[in-house]
């Protein structure tokens, strides 16, 4: 692969060996010193609440061809969600030929094209196991190799065995790849423990971080419109009743569907949950203003104008027009 420079060829072999031995030594020492090999510890609650064995046998297996673990992993979780698609269809949609691989944003975006919402999960082993226990397979990204020579890889986690501390993956060409929590976590930690689950519109999985949930549904809304996203916003605020941004987004979807009263109600909820959410006060004020309720509009806009942040100026401007 590499053409060697003539100067290097002339170097005495002894020196060359010494150098590579040194590199190897440094390398092994650095591994032993770094704590990345330690056994991942699970929360006590994980042991108490989750079943000790889970295996989602109904997740189909598509072996990866060449470098196409991305399309294969997506096909498995999409098929599991009853989406009719094949690895061959997904390759032109998510694979980047010159990179011989698939990148994370496009993995999420491709699920969106099949009218499914991809939610990045919280990056902990506890959270991964919880999704599996809830019956949801998880696409995980690993670096199978070391940071210096990365081998990025997508696999689908389908089960675990708590007493044995093993995880079960559909990975590459292996239909049932079992590996220890320790080895898996070492490879997963190198992608900052990145993974995602997919859900139909109107479903929000348990345990997704509030911000990630809002981002995921908002991205879906941008592609498919507010009428397609509305069921998911409703499900989100039901699942996460203290998610102020969720109520804010719900109000925008209602508004676009000409359900102004519901939009207003959702904004009031948002400001109740988070009285510091300036953008919700601003929109509430603007809604009142459009309805000619000047006193209420002024009240809400005053709140927005007092809160420092990117929406303060807009609120001050709106107050001047009153």
């Amino acid at each position, binding site marked *: 692969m590499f053409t060697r420079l003539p100067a290097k060829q002339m170097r005495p072999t002894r020196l060359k060996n010494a150098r590579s031995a040194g590199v*190897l030594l440094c390398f092994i020492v650095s591994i032993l010193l770094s704590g990345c090999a330690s056994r991942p510890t699970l929360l006590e609650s994980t042991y108490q609440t989750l079943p000790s064995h889970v295996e989602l046998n109904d997740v189909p297996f598509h072996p*990866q061809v060449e470098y196409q673990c991305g399309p294969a992993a997506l096909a498995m979780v999409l098929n599991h969600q009853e989406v009719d698609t094949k690895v061959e269809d997904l390759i032109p949609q998510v694979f980047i030929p010159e990179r*011989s691989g*698939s990148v994370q944003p496009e993995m999420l975006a491709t699920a969106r094209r099949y009218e499914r919402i991809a939610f990045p999960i919280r990056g902990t082993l506890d959270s991964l196991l919880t999704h599996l226990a809830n019956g949801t397979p998880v696409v995980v990204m690993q670096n199978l190799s*070391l940071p210096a020579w990365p081998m990025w890889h997508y696999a689908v986690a389908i089960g675990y065995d708590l007493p044995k501390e093993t995880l079960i993956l559909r990975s590459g060409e292996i239909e049932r790849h079992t590996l220890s929590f320790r080895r898996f976590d070492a490879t997963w930690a190198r992608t900052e423990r990145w993974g995602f689950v997919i859900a139909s519109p109107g479903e929000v999985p348990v345990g997704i971080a509030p911000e990630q949930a809002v981002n995921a549904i908002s991205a879906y809304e941008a592609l498919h419109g507010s009428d397609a996203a509305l069921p998911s916003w409703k499900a989100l605020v039901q699942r996460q009743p203290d998610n102020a*941004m969720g109520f804010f987004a719900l109000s925008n979807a209602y508004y676009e569907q000409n359900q102004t009263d519901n939009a207003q109600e959702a904004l009031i909820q948002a400001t109740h949950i988070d009285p510091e959410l300036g953008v919700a006060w601003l929109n509430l004020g*603007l*809604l009142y203003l459009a309805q000619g309720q000047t006193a209420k509009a002024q009240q809400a806009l005053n709140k927005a104008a007092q809160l420092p942040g990117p929406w303060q100026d807009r609120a001050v401007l709106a107050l001047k027009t009153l």
Partner: protein
Amino acid sequence: MATLRRYISVLLIALLALGSFPVAAAQTTGLVSTQAALEADNASEERERIHDILARADVQEQLLAQGVSPDEVKARVAALSDSEAKQMAEQLEAMPAGAGVIGALFAVFVILLVTDILGLTDVYPFTR
């Protein structure tokens, strides 16, 4: 020359995209949209739109240059959210691309064999 051509094509794509925008996109009440609130940017929404279009045009160029078929590239870029498009425009080169196990140099092979046995990596499942 190649860079100049690239800039011009990005600009042209952006202009075309801008031209195709529906005129009636603006809401009469001027409510802040969810995407705008999530970006939490002080910039005016028009300026934000233009940034967004440029980012998408840039991603489209990069994907085409990396061998993605011209028939597919538009739909792929359209499926990205604003923040994903920006992220890809800025750092596609540096982004990890999941590919699976690929051939390694011999020295690396030996090291990985050792780390596999130590349980640090998962390159050669036959080590177990």
